[in-house]
């Protein structure tokens, strides 16, 4: 029994129960206790995650205890903590109830599991375990029409998508003759990969994950849901849920035998489209579409949460692009990007929440003159947005550099160029926010937000790394490379 490997999960589960119990018992008397408990559980789980075995052993036949899973667990716990704290600073759900906290914990548990799952049943279950609490989290403000609507769209869209994925998964089960990814690998090696059903199943599974990471054409839910949900929840979904989706996708892809034929020198640099397998080509197409659609649609947005939603779609495109190359370097780059994305996007959603809280609207035009009126807020937002654009010397730039280097390294120059150009396009809409905050002269009375030290502290925690890690990122790179072993790719192991 590898209970040690399950310790984070156990702690999270305990946290869920503790929060519910504390909420039931202490309602009215100690409203802060559940939050403390939830944060504590997440921190404990994170701490435990640092000590789980990472030798790649199989835990209870369903989970792989390796550094990749460890890191994803850690990230998701971190995002959970920050999202909870950000919720308390955001525009809604300032005092989250026990249900909210419990659902966040369950979702984090699902994410952690998803990133370790090597069994299709577990994978599907974990997938739903992320989804179902998320549906509720989005609609947590019951009386809010928009939150309701967002929640409904999310649940319907999510269920259909997961239904598509499930159907694909069942075919994979059929091909594998079992539910473990190992069995699938073995079956594919024996020729199952040639079957048309395999490809269809892959496409269906990809549809499910596309929903999870909000990739085209399963991105439709994201703008509406992010706009309707509290900003902090939006951040949680955009970061943690997406990260978990990618982790799950990596697990699945690791068993699909996608190794691309190695080419040499100039021949390699001339490649246009991933040729390892049809799946990678499909993934690349989805990636390009995703980043392009996300960026182009974002050009039109005026509401900050919608804008961030479309931008997060575009970022999913970059991450998918890294995946579509499917090399160790690309995977490390993807992880690197995820870390950067985590800080940037959480910070963006946090700040958006704070501003909506104070201004009562998320319309970018309403931010006029804010940058100069509240300098730290302006600077923090500027750093975050420039980082999202991918401008040096910020974390976002280095992350993009990693991704595109990995893509170029495998020879997909054109893919890289498309991605880079997309990055440049994104400047326009990010800069619009800044333009409104700094460049536009305020019309009439400017509402000066009242911000507390807690807002500042939280922002500092998220924004400082964006700046600092943009300059000293060598260690993250080494760490990301170490976390992604070749075995994860389904190669050489």
């Amino acid at each position, binding site marked *: 029994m590898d209970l040690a490997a399950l310790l984070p999960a156990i702690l999270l589960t305990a946290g869920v129960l503790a929060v519910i119990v504390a909420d039931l018992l202490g309602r009215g008397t100690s409203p802060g206790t559940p939050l403390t408990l939830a944060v504590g559980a997440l921190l404990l789980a994170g701490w435990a995650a640092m000590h789980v075995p990472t030798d790649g052993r199989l835990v209870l036949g369903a989970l792989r205890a390796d550094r990749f899973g460890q890191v994803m667990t850690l990230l998701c716990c971190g995002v959970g903590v920050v999202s909870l704290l950000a919720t308390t600073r955001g525009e809604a759900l300032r005092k989250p109830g026990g249900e909210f906290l419990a659902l966040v914990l369950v979702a984090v548990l699902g994410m952690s599991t998803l990133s370790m799952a090597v069994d299709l049943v577990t994978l599907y279950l974990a997938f739903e375990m992320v989804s179902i609490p998320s549906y509720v989290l989005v609609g947590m403000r019951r009386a809010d029409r928009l939150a309701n609507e967002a929640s409904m769209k999310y649940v319907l*869209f999510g269920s259909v998508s997961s239904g598509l994925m499930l159907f694909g998964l069942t075919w994979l089960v059929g091909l594998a003759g079992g539910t473990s990814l190992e069995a699938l690998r073995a079956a594919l090696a024996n020729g199952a990969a040639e079957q048309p059903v395999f490809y269809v199943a892959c*496409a*269906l599974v990809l*549809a499910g994950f596309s929903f999870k990471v909000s990739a085209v054409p399963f991105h*439709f839910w994201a703008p509406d849901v992010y706009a309707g949900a509290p900003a902090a929840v939006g951040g949680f979904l955009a970061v943690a849920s997406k990260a978990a989706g990618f982790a799950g996708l990596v697990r699945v892809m690791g068993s699909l035998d996608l190794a691309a034929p190695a080419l040499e020198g100039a021949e390699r640099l001339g490649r246009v489209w991933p040729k390892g397998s049809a799946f990678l080509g499909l993934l690349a197409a989805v990636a390009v579409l995703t980043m392009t*659609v996300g960026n182009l649609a*974002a050009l*039109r947005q005026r509401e900050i949460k919608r804008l961030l939603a479309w931008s997060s779609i575009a970022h999913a495109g970059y991450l998918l692009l890294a995946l579509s190359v499917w090399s160790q370097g690309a995977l490390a780059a993807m992880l690197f990007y995820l870390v950067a994305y985590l800080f940037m996007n959480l910070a963006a959603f946090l700040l958006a929440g704070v501003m909506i809280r104070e201004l009562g609207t998320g319309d970018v*035009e309403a931010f006029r003159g804010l940058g100069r009126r509240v300098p730290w807020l302006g600077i923090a937002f500027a750093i975050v947005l420039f980082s999202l654009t991918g401008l040096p010397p910020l974390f976002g730039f280095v992350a993009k550099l990693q991704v595109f280097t990995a893509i170029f390294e495998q020879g997909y120059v054109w893919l890289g160029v498309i991605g880079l150009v997309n990055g440049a396009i994104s400047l*326009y809409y990010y800069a619009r926010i800044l333009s409104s905050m700094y460049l536009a002269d305020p019309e009439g009375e400017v509402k000066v937000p009242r911000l507390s030290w807690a807002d500042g502290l939280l922002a500092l925690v998220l924004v400082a790394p964006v700046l600092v890690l943009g300059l000293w990122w060598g260690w993250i790179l080494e760490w990301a490379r170490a976390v992604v072993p070749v075995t994860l790719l389904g190669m050489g192991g």
Partner: protein
Amino acid sequence: MLTPALVLLLAPLAGFVIQYFAGRRLPRQGDWLTLLTIGTSLACAVSILLTALAEPVGFSHTVWSAAWMNPGAGDPWTVSITIDGLTAVMLFVVTLVAFLVHLFSVGYMHGDPKYWLFFAWLQMFSVSMLILVLAGNLLHLFIGWELVGLCSYKLIGFWSEKKAPGNASRKAFITTRIGDVGMLVAIMAIYAAVGSFEFPRIFAAAQQGLLSDGWMLVAALGVFFAAVGKSAQLPLHVWLPDAMEGPTPVSALIHAATMVAAGVYLVARMMPIFPPEALTVVAVVGGVTALMAGLIAVAQNDIKKVLAYSTVSQLGYMFLGLGCGAWHAGLFHLTTHAFFKALMFLGSGSVIHACHHEQDMRKMGGLLRKLPLTGITFGIGVLAIAGVPFLSGFYSKDAILAAAWHRFPVLFWLGLGSALLTAFYMTRLFVGTFLGKPKDQHVHDHAHEGPPTMTVPLLVLAVLSVVAGYGAWHTDLLAPPLGERAVGVIQRFDTVGDTAHFEHSGFVAMLATAAGALGLLLGLVVFRAISTAAKDALRRPLAPLEAACASKFWFDELYRDMFLRPAYALARLFSWSDGGVVDGAVNGAGALGRRGARVSGATDRHVVDGAVRGSGGLAWLLGGIASRLQGGRVRAYLGWSVAAVALFLVLRQVF
């Protein structure tokens, strides 16, 4: 000769600097200072001239040379001072005329609010002209060449608070700048072939055939084109008459004696690289210009305009001489012309001064009694330019015609015709201004002779106009520099071996004299002797010609319609397209810009244009599509998603 050369150059430079920055605060606004400096230069020039007279024929000394910069991989580019006979003569002419013009200006410009500034720019002009003359290499020469252009611009537009001088100065600068393009072409071609700008090396290369025939022709024509611009030859002559908007001393100095002659000087200087074809071009342009400008001059009523066209015509003469291979004849004419034309300009200045800036000769007449000194000296000038024997113009013009007779008989007749015309319109000018009855009594009554500062220069120049011809005996000084080698280059091209050949051609001299005399006589008859009715009768058959002449052969109109308007139209077109098309098409930030513009409350039509055209507009539109698909209905979302998957699956398998 280094010291006098440097002093010669630096004295007016110092004068300019002091005068420009402090002139206004000096006593008498510093005119004495500039006289002093230019006087010093004159003294130096005289000393150089005297030294030069003692040198052997065809001498050439590079008295100073310094590396200036070295942008290439080879030898550095230098600035250098070279003195030869031509330089010595030019220095003398330039400094002398400059000095006299300075002196004249003391009286002429008296009371002008920018009196000091005028002298400052006169000084700067002198410096620039001296740089040009002293230059030992083409680049250095070009610097002087451009600087005289600047000074010309500044001085023509000296009264630029009025519109006409402003326009005239601009026209002068831009027109000569067009000519400068030729100079640049020559510089580039020569440097590309020779790798140096030094005259000796250029000429040596030309002789050794380093300069291929094609490039040599290009370089020579380039040089000549520059000269055409500067010396107001066809087709770039249009600026010079307009330049008469400048103060008259300026016209005398720059637009009669020195700067416009710089073109002639340049061609003479670069003669060794002129192949026969180029010389032919020079001669033809010169001859045609001489005749055409003479024709136009006949129909002008503004004294200065008459003189201006006369200058153009005389410069044409010089080029004719050069083009015929009569190197020294052209230069000789340059010298004599400098004197008598400066004399006439200053004389006209004196008249204008006397008549309170009235320049229209139809309002003058009978001024001889009021301005005897001016009238007489002016008369001497007229006689000199008309080529009356034993005056300077006779000798120099004769030499040119002789050369033309030998080389291009057709052009000889052109020259002869223009000689006749010259005498004719000069007589007209003189008669109209000084003789007859005053046509405007008011002007007449107030006319008075200027102060001595104005009359002395007239006298000096009159004397020179008479005697300069005897300098013909010293034309050895004007023998081609660089000794026999360069002479050889010239001789290569032509029949003309013996330069003395021209001077003793009695037949040509006779014809020339006759033409001059005829012109004078005709002028006297037409403008003095016969009645108005007879004049009209005489005029009638010539009416079309007169109309053409009076409107200067419509050059200005032609250029306006052919070049200026299209250029402006093009500029406007480009400017418009730059806002919309290029902007939009290149990467379409215009489209994005529309958004930004809306934010700032302003929309730009072109930007909107760009938005539609550019790829940025495309991005914007596609963004709209993506955004519109997001219509809010979850069923539609699901429809798109599922349909995409289904379609993909089918397409993937069926095809």
